[in-house]
């Protein structure tokens, strides 16, 4: 009898076209997402005068550089050129583009699931590290660089070495107000920013099963910040319910057959993982980051770390990080005043995220300026139908169009030098949101709490209409 297989083993096995003696396998790619930043790869395609192998499996999204205000005119010539080049490539190679004017435009990792392009059992790649997001459906999804993007464009395949297998089991239930974002930051702080390096990460346990698709997407999205090659949650009824009725998803008898097959995408009892981590959901509290790596994360009730003199390398790192962040060792996190907030990005700008932030902001005023950029244009319209836009605007925040926006600042939505931003995004790297910008990562509700108090704050101290 063959050994029991994990979910990842099954995803891997079903995509192997051929295996080399050295251990690398050639894998079939079911979905390839490209964006304006993929221009280096298209140039490589042109250099080889090669055709696009599978236009029907290639999808373009304009997200990284697009303006979130006054979209009809792009002031920056270089940015306009990139958006135009993506459109030209889509027209020339004949693939579907969710361009600037498309009603379904949005951030690539929001659009894929929303359109039913992301499905269980698929292998999905994109020239973007947060492609791990799509693993929330029980897909094998990972980010690749420009050379690999070019390889997929030309062949619809990729050479890969099988990653090791890692499982994070979260038992029990998350407490009220504790979100997938808090869980993700908890995991990263526990295992480190390279704690899952070289591993395919599977999440399991009662707290994971209880998560909505939005929550699973947030969790898998952040897994790259723990260094994971990819992350996944086994598909279940929550997954199937999401897929049903999506534009590009199978329907009718095709969907029945698909669901039948997806039910087999489980980790079999007795499967062996290279690494296991167990977490009690009850231990997870609201978390914020204080430093310049997502692993620099602590409960909001905590204090900025003090340098440990016994560990000079760590002390030097701390001095450096705190210097950049403008924080004092031992300072209470809830005393840290902020300058602005950002609610957006592929991590936390889906409908559930906007609802959570709006629940805290309703009937309140933000003490600092802020920007809300929905994850997609469809999310934006749905939020407006629910009146969430009016809550954000009444609180004093800007309500903008969808794109990567202030997550990475490529479109000019920047945090100023020395400014401190409470942000729903995924990276607090130096300069990520703008040169000299200071980023604190947290959940949407925590960002809303920071907005109304003007400092890092515990959302549990602010009553909302849901209690």
């Amino acid at each position: 009898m063959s050994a029991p297989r994990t979910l990842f083993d099954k995803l891997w096995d079903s995509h192997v076209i051929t295996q080399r003696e050295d251990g690398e396998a050639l894998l079939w790619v079911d979905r390839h997402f490209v964006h304006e930043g993929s221009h280096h790869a298209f140039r490589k395609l042109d250099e080889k005068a090669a055709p696009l192998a599978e236009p029907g499996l290639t999808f373009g999204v304009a997200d990284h550089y697009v303006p979130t205000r006054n979209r009809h005119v792009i002031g920056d010539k270089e940015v306009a050129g990139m958006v135009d080049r993506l459109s030209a490539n889509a027209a020339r190679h004949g693939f579907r583009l969710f361009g600037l004017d498309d009603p379904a435009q949005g951030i690539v990792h929001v659009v894929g699931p929303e359109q039913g392009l992301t499905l269980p059992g698929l292998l999905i790649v994109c020239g973007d590290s947060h492609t791990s997001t799509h693993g929330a459906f029980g897909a094998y999804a990972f980010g690749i660089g420009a050379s690999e993007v070019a390889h997929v464009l030309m062949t619809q395949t990729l050479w890969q070495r099988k990653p090791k297998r890692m499982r994070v089991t979260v038992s029990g239930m998350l407490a009220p107000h504790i979100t997938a974002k808090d869980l993700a930051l908890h995991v990263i702080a526990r295992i480190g920013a390279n704690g899952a390096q070289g591993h395919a990460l599977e999440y399991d346990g009662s707290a994971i099963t209880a998560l909505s698709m939005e929550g699973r997407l947030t969790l898998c999205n952040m897994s790259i910040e723990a260094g994971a090659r990819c992350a996944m949650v086994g598909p279940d009824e929550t997954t199937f319910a999401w897929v049903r009725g999506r534009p590009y998803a199978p329907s009718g008898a095709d969907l029945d057959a698909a669901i039948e097959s997806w039910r087999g995408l489980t980790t079999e009892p007795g499967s062996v993982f290279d690494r296991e981590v167990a977490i009690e959901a009850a231990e997870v509290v609201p978390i914020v980051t204080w430093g310049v790596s997502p692993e620099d994360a602590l409960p909001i009730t905590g204090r900025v770390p003090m340098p440990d003199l016994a560990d000079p390398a760590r002390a030097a790192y701390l001095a450096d990080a705190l210097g950049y962040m403008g924080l004092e060792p031992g300072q209470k996190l809830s005393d840290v005043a902020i300058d602005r907030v950002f609610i957006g990005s592929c991590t936390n700008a889906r409908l559930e995220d906007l609802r959570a932030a709006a629940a805290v902001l309703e009937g309140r005023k933000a003490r600092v300026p802020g920007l809300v950029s929905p994850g997609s244009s469809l999310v934006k319209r749905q939020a407006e139908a629910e009146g969430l836009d009016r809550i954000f605007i009444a609180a004093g925040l800007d309500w903008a169009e969808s794109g990567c926006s202030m997550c990475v600042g490529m479109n000019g939505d920047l945090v100023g030098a020395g400014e401190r931003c409470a942000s729903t995004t995924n990276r607090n790297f130096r300069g990520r949101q703008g040169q000299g910008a200071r980023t604190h990562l947290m959940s949407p509700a925590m960002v809303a709490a920071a907005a109304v108090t003007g400092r890092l704050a515990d959302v549990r101290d602010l009553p909302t209409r849901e209690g």
Partner: protein
Amino acid sequence: MERFTRLEAFAAPLGLANVDTDQLIPARFMKRSRAEGYGQFLLHDLRFEADGSPKPGFVLSDPRHARAKVLVAGRNFGTGSSREAAVYALWDFGIRCVIAPSFGDIFASNAVKNGLLPAVMPESGVEALMEALPGVGYAVAVDLEACTVRCGDLALAFSVDPVRRLQLLNGWDDIDLTRRHLPEIAAFREARLAAQPWTMPRLGAAG
């Protein structure tokens, strides 16, 4: 792709841990075409003041390190964004090898695809190397056949994925390799779509 076998060169002791690709090349420079060269943007915001002058204390501001082809760094080098431009910035600056205790997976893959060696050396080895460098005028010899770095009397082992090692040693281009498998790819595609038609997007390309 350029082959990598042996490299005798100067090594710059960067030392820092968690050097992410946002630092290796800040996003605002990535709109440019590669033809303009990315070397001037390498570690830009660590290297330069707001007015464009070099930051005095930073390692690459030291004229001794302007010709470095090897970079010695702390753990988790190249973490973060998948931007291959991070490798272009290193390459265009002149760097051909980065030595660190661990690398971001996507970065390591991007590096090899461009002929740059990500050499994994244990924390203790990196520390020993950092200490030894000033005494030998920062000269090192990297040998990919033997997987060693020599620095004066010191010989330190590093590791690199065996497949990547072969690719670097031979200068292989993946695409040429893959093209030999076109019939298998076509057969796989046909079988997959026949057995699991739902893997095809419903609306198709015309959507």
